């Protein structure tokens, strides 16, 4: 699903690379934790998959396509196959829960009846049935993150990228979010999640990829957070 071939990324001239010769393959339906200290390049990895950035060296393949050959106007097509979840939720404050999720279908031109059936279905799945009319600030942090996950998942993408989705949440709420992502993963969706949260990683026992200063130092099946320390 995602393949990195000796990918390096240098942001500013002369700075040390944010990613350094990373080669990695993530198969369909896998669940991968990306761990590493702050600044180790986790977000950079995810941005390369989304083609928000282009690699300085090496090539990135997503869903079988070489992103280097992808012309600019086809990037939206790529992104429709990828759902994103962030630490800060990134919801629209002035739109209610339903609209926040519906926007993902509206901008890609889905017909009205499709939106009307799919959105409630997805909200039901993430456990927000009955809260369609609430505004984001009327929800708890955990609920807001569920809205964000619903938005990422509503058009059934092949891949979900999550950048520290539990970073703003307390431990109890975090566990709920992890259960939800695990459930989505079981539907066959590939999930790549960057995180600092050692408890969660240790508990889930999934594949763990560790970055240190942009280099991949560990790729462990059913791994734990701190193994390399």
């Amino acid at each position: 699903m995602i393949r990195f071939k000796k990918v390096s990324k240098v942001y500013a001239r002369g700075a040390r690379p944010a990613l350094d010769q990373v080669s990695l393959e993530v198969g369909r339906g896998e669940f991968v934790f990306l761990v590493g200290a702050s600044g180790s390049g986790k977000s950079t990895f995810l941005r390369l998959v989304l083609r928000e950035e282009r690699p300085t060296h090496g090539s990135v393949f997503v869903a079988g396509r070489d992103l280097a050959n992808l012309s600019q106007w086809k990037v939206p097509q790529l992104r429709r196959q990828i759902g994103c979840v962030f630490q800060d939720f990134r919801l629209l404050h002035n739109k209610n829960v339903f609209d926040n999720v519906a926007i993902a279908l509206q901008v890609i031109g889905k017909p009205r009846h499709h939106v009307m059936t799919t959105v409630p279905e997805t909200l039901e799945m993430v456990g927000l049935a009955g809260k369609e009319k609430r505004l984001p600030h009327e929800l708890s942090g955990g609920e807001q993150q569920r809205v964000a996950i619903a938005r990422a998942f509503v058009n059934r993408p092949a891949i979900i990228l999550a950048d520290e989705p539990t970073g703003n949440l307390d431990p109890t709420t975090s566990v709920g979010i992890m259960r939800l992502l695990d459930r989505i993963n079981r539907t066959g969706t590939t999930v790549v999640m960057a995180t600092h949260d050692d408890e969660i990683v240790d508990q889930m026992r999934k594949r763990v990829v560790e970055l240190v200063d942009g280099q991949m130092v560990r790729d462990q099946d059913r791994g734990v957070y701190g193994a390399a320390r």
Partner: protein
Amino acid sequence: MRLQFVLSQIGNGLRRNMAMAVSVVLVTFISLTFVGAAVLLQMQVGNMKDEWYDRVEVSIYLCPPDSSVPACAGGEATEQQVEQLQDVLTSDSLSPYVEEVFLETKEQAFEAFQERFGDQDWAQRITVDQMQQSLRVSLVDPELYQVVADEVAGRDGVEEVIDQRSILEPLFLVLNRATVLAAGLAAVMIVAAVLLITTTIRLSAMSRSRETSIMRLVGASNFFIQLPFMLEGAIAALLGAVLASTGLWLGVRSIIENWLAESVRWVNFVNTGDVLVVAPLLVAIGIVLAAISSLVSLSRYTKV
């Protein structure tokens, strides 16, 4: 679903940047008003040239009895001299240039004089004899005045040859300067308008950067993201153009049709009909301005 979504985006944008949208409308309004005014002034110049250059003539003033000009030392022009001059003007060498020759007698000159100055007190005491005979020559091409003048000037009985066009030149000079002034103001204002529309779009993009980044994230196409911004600019520019057309129409109606055209009857003024011809031009300019500004600002502020 999509159209409705785009429309709601535009509504949001305009409402959020109300002050900005209003100032774009006003500045476009003023700049296009000046563009329109410049165009109308040039139409006026064209009108007047068309009308007057056709009518204007070369006037060959014939010697009066008591002229101080040396060429008239021989006293008043004789009938024979007048006939000779008419012959010269209709001769083979000049006839290609001359369209019509017409002798204005003293009586006719007196009539024209009374028509122009008749309401003045002293004019009533001017007599027919104080007037002057002249030959009025209309030319095929008014620009070739000099050919005729060279041939006729200095002949017996000719006091002075005058090209009526030269009397009109100062008027055209004023109108042309006014055009330049209006065009200059229009240019400055258009620069301001382009900068403004650019900034409006940019401001709009900035204040909606969250929405935009989220839309990009969920796979909205570039066009879909940029369309609302472009339409916002275009709507504002369009409103400005409509205001400018209305302003010009009202201006022409009140200043020219209801005032100048009443008091100065001898000029063929531009009218509200001409404004209707200029209006589509203004609208087109407004839309082009908006389009250019959109291209400039959007490529910078909402890229994927």
